[in-house]
Structure formats: C-alpha cells, structure tokens
C-alpha cells in the first residue's frame, strides 16, 4: 500500500510541476496500461477452473453489491439535497 501511495504522490507532484504543459501522451498511455492489466486479469480468470465454475455466483454477488452501493449512495445524495436547502441548481 505504501508503494502505491508513493507512486500516486510522485505522480501528483510531477503533474503539478508540469501543469502548464498539455500532456497529450498521458491519456493514451493510461488507456493502454488499463487494457494490458484487464487482459492479464482475463488471463488469470480464464486459466482458473474454480473461478470459471463459479462465474454465475460471482456475477450475482457483483450485481447485488452494485445495487447496494447505488441505492445507498442515492439515498445519501437525497439527504444532502434536502440539507442543502434545495438551493436551485446548486448555485448561490
């Protein structure tokens, strides 16, 4: 976790230093890294019989967690909207 945090902090500092430059290469690089990592995750899933056999159960758990998170955050957002006094459009 410490290494990950350090990578993030280093990135933020470098990003801050370069904030007057347009980093056109950053977005394509991030996308390609995500593709590689998702491909590797797929490789691991495809090579693991236990995961493949339980994919329908895993899918059901995923849907339940997505629904739980969505409803929970929607209710919390609703409370905040009332607390903020329904100020029109969120602007003062």
């Amino acid at each position, binding site marked *: *976790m410490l290494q*990950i*945090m350090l990578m*993030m902090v*280093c*990135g*933020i*500092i*470098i*990003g*801050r230093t*370069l*904030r007057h430059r347009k*980093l056109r290469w*950053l*977005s394509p*690089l*991030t*996308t390609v*890294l*995500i*593709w*590689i*990592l*998702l*491909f*590797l*995750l*797929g*490789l*691991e*899933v*495809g*090579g693991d019989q236990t*995961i493949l056999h339980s994919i329908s159960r895993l899918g059901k*758990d*995923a*849907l*339940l*967690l*997505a*629904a739980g*998170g*969505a409803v*929970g*955050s*929607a*209710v*919390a*957002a*609703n*409370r*905040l*909207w009332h607390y*903020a*006094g329904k*100020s029109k*459009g*969120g*602007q003062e």
Partner: protein
Amino acid sequence: MKGSLIIIAFFILGTVCGLLHLVPSQLTQGNTSYFALCALIFCVGISIGNDSSVLQTLRHTNPRLLLLPLCTFVGTMAGCLAVSLLTSTHRLTDCLAIGSGFGYYSLSSIFITQYRGAALGTVALLANIARELITLLASPLLVRWFGPLAPISVGGATSMDTTLPIISRYSGKDLVTLSVFHGFCMDFSVPFLVTFFCEI
C-alpha cells in the same frame, strides 16, 4: 461507452487466451501486472496533479453541496455493508473494497486482483461496470426518486467522464462542475480506500 466496451473486450480476450492456454503462464505468475499497476497509478497521479481547473471553478457552488463525495462514500459503504450482512458469501472488508471502486472498474478490479486474487477481482470488475451502467440507464429515474444529486453520487468516480453527459442532461447543466469535482475526489480516493479495505 465505446471505451468501456473495448476494456471489457480486452478482459474477455484475456479470458479466452487463458482458457485455451494461448499465452505463456509466466505472464500471470511474474510481477508484470504489479509493475503495470505502479505505472498506471503513477499516470493517474500525474493527471490529478496536472488538472488545476477543478478547484478554481468551484468557488460559486453552494458549499454544502461539496459534501457530496463524503455522502457517496458513506452511502456506498452502508449499501455494501447491508449486502454483505444479507448474503454473507464474502468477507465484510472484501465487500467494502469492491464498493470503494465507485464505478472505477479498471483500477479497482486490478487492485483487488493484486491483493485478494482473481475471483474477487472479477466480482469487482462486474460490480463496478454494473454501477456505471445503472447510472447510464437509470439517471432519469434516480432524479425523480432521489433528486438531482443522485446520478452524480451513483456515478461515483465516473461522474467526471463517462457518465458526465447523462448527468448534465438529467441533473442539469449547473451541476456539471459539482459532478466533475465529485468524480475527481472519488477518483483520487479509489486506490487508497481499496488497498485499505484489502489489507485490514
């Protein structure tokens, strides 16, 4: 949407290659994914540090609405806690780690795979894709039932990019800045929260 489909296609391609043993197994056993993950988080850091416009455009927003990222966090954790208690198939901290992906499925599933294995990583991938899809498809209903902040909150980390057009249409254009700020905060918190819940 196109970007999301390409990402899912890479996951499916990987699964097929893994199933048919088309790729040498050293690729998954070595440190390849960890190095790629470090490079990715470094890039995410650069993009966060490089973007100074978000904070400047927030000056005219109702300060109470700036609590929205906190509400999203508390609401999501409460929802995942409830699901964890109802189903009890996964550990509570695993459910919270999946929930703290906030729709950022690429990063959260990669982290969870790294720390807790590919099975949970797959649940994280599917759960967070589903969260993005719920935002894209159910925003009109969310606004009607829970008010205009709900699509932003449900969108989580995606409220600054993929779900922003939908949010702008159904929640109103004047909430776009708040939506970007919210996505920015959630984006930033994903790596920390996911690794935190994976490690406790």
